[in-house]
């Protein structure tokens, strides 16, 4: 997992905020449009991004209706089938068949159903961890950038410290210390390892904004610091925050899978893509489907989120280079 948060963010570009100045209310005939709605319009015209969004929605539906998948196939996610149609005569995983569409694992469990349930974990942890990362990053970045001085000095050093330990290593260290692992712990661990990159970039933008006229104006009207930070400055960093979130999502999803793959993620028997890949590792030379389907699910998900993320970035900053040259 070399694609850390830093990479995702460095690809985000930092000039996304320029369009974020509120549009002045025009005459009645012209509809005033916020930069956000302009960006969404641009995004809607991006075919690659829309296709990815469609795929993401399908994966989300697959996750939400995992029990339905289990019902249709008639196989609960953790039920271990022992018959000859589920395990080979040697007790090995069974290849895809009409009964088990994606085959079975070495315990005779239905891989298709487990991938559906795994999607729940992947998306919940991915989205939850990303939101948490952005919220912590935003708050720390806003406070450090706005107050400056000693507050900034302390927060900036904390950011440096977190950034000086590799993402995955930091997560491993945290998980070992915390001991008990569940979905919430994994979310917190991923967010805790990732917020610093977001905070550093937001901080830079807030510093450049701190002395601008609209902040001066708010201050001279007697607005409190909290009001200036959250009512006046925050809306101006919302655009980059949205861009970061979409670029961070695949990183969070891969991190969750990586932690599970290393055995420090969500514990079994909960179905989880990273865990399935780790378990497949010793069998896949004879049971390719065991690695192929969870790996493919993970790849399609991250690919779709990355294409969507590129589209979102382009929509908010039309000047930046797009990954797919048009």
């Amino acid at each position, binding site marked *: 997992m070399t694609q850390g948060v830093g990479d995702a963010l460095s690809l985000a570009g930092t000039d996304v905020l320029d369009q974020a100045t509120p549009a002045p209310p025009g005459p009645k005939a012209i509809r005033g449009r916020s930069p956000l709605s302009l960006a969404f319009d641009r995004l809607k015209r991006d075919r690659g991004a829309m296709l990815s969004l469609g795929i993401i929605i399908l994966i989300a539906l697959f996750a939400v209706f995992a029990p339905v998948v289990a019902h249709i196939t008639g196989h609960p996610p953790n039920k271990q089938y022992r018959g000859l149609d589920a395990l080979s005569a040697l007790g090995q995983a069974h290849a895809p068949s009409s009964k088990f569409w994606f085959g079975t694992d070495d315990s005779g469990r239905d891989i298709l159903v487990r991938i559906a349930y795994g999607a729940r974990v992947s998306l919940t942890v991915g989205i939850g961890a990303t939101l948490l990362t952005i919220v912590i990053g935003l708050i720390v970045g806003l406070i450090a950038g706005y107050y400056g001085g000693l507050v900034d000095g302390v927060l900036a050093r904390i950011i440096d410290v977190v950034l000086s330990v590799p*993402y995955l290593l930091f997560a491993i260290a945290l998980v*070992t210390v915390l001991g008990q692992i569940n979905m919430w712990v994994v979310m917190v661990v991923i967010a805790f390892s990732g917020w610093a990159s977001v905070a550093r970039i937001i901080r830079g933008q807030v510093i450049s904004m701190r002395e601008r006229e609209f902040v001066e104006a708010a201050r001279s009207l007697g607005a409190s610091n909290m009001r200036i930070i959250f009512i006046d400055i925050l809306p101006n960093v919302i655009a980059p925050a949205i861009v970061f979130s979409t670029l961070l999502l695949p990183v969070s999803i891969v991190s969750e899978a990586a932690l599970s793959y290393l055995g420090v993620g969500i514990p079994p028997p909960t179905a989880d893509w990273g865990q399935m890949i780790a378990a497949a590792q010793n069998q896949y030379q004879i049971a390719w489907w065991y690695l192929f389907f969870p790996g493919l699910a993970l*790849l399609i998900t991250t690919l779709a989120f990355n294409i969507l993320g590129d589209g979102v970035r382009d929509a908010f900053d039309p000047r*930046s280079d797009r990954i797919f*040259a*048009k």
Partner: protein
Amino acid sequence: MLRFLVRRIAQGILVLVLVTIAVYALFFAGSPRDIARRIAGRQATPEVVDRAYHRLGLDQPFYAQYRHFVWRLLHGDLGFDFYNGQPVTTVLKQAAPVTLSLAVGAAILWFILGVSTGVYSSVRPRSFIDRAFTASALFFYSIPVFVLGLTLIYFLFFRLTKAGHRWFPASGYVGLTTSVSQWALHLILPWLTLALISAAAYTRLSRSSMLEVLGEDYVRTARAKGLSEKRVILRHALRSALTPVVTQFGIDAASVIGGAILTETVFGLPGLGWESVHAIGNQNLPIIIGVVLISATAIVVANILVDMLYAVLDPRVRLS
């Protein structure tokens, strides 16, 4: 330059001091007995726990413990691995060359791969090859290290072996001093895995950086005075386009341990990453602490080097 350097190094040292405090706060919180039990690792006998208790000076006040910890660090003592009954440095000294071999080889490969594809794409933007490069960059940027690693093993080891070709070993490490060819052979797949994934970001970065530079006036001037296209691109444009790429490279090369954790696990390479993953299972905290401290130092040093390199590459940057 000198003043900047001194300030930058002082800042780096401050960060490292803070890292030791953070590590201490993270791993050495709780009652002394609990800490001793935790540090001694899973399945430690009461005697080992006692030894850990005394060695770590847990009967002393907190600040004395921390002073002790830092004092030992300054003497090159990263702690004691109670689980295996040897100093942490002994374990890490064996593991470091493996990670270094993996990282250096992969870094060279991904830099060449990434920059050459990026530059080629920028010279012929919107061409078929550009599209192919950017699409594969997106693919490799998205695929998780362990999925790519296992896929390579499947096709280049299992399938080839089945077909009667034993070209690439799938796991294990042979020391450079034992056999250079075996060393390289065992590292080809891990290098490829790590390099393909990391190169993706460089393809994108050098492509966009080159496109920007190629639009600048001095490039037009160089062309106007009749220089060959090759010279314009390689001598004039590439130099300044490389600045952001090199910056990123310095940072990535230092944090490669993150990717090495997964690559080493997939390929069974007994490096620093592999050691820390093994340490999780045994709850062998001293090893994890050691790897955290080593990689934090590497990243801090690399950040300082990158800042200096930045000034050397780009004369417009003034260090102050």
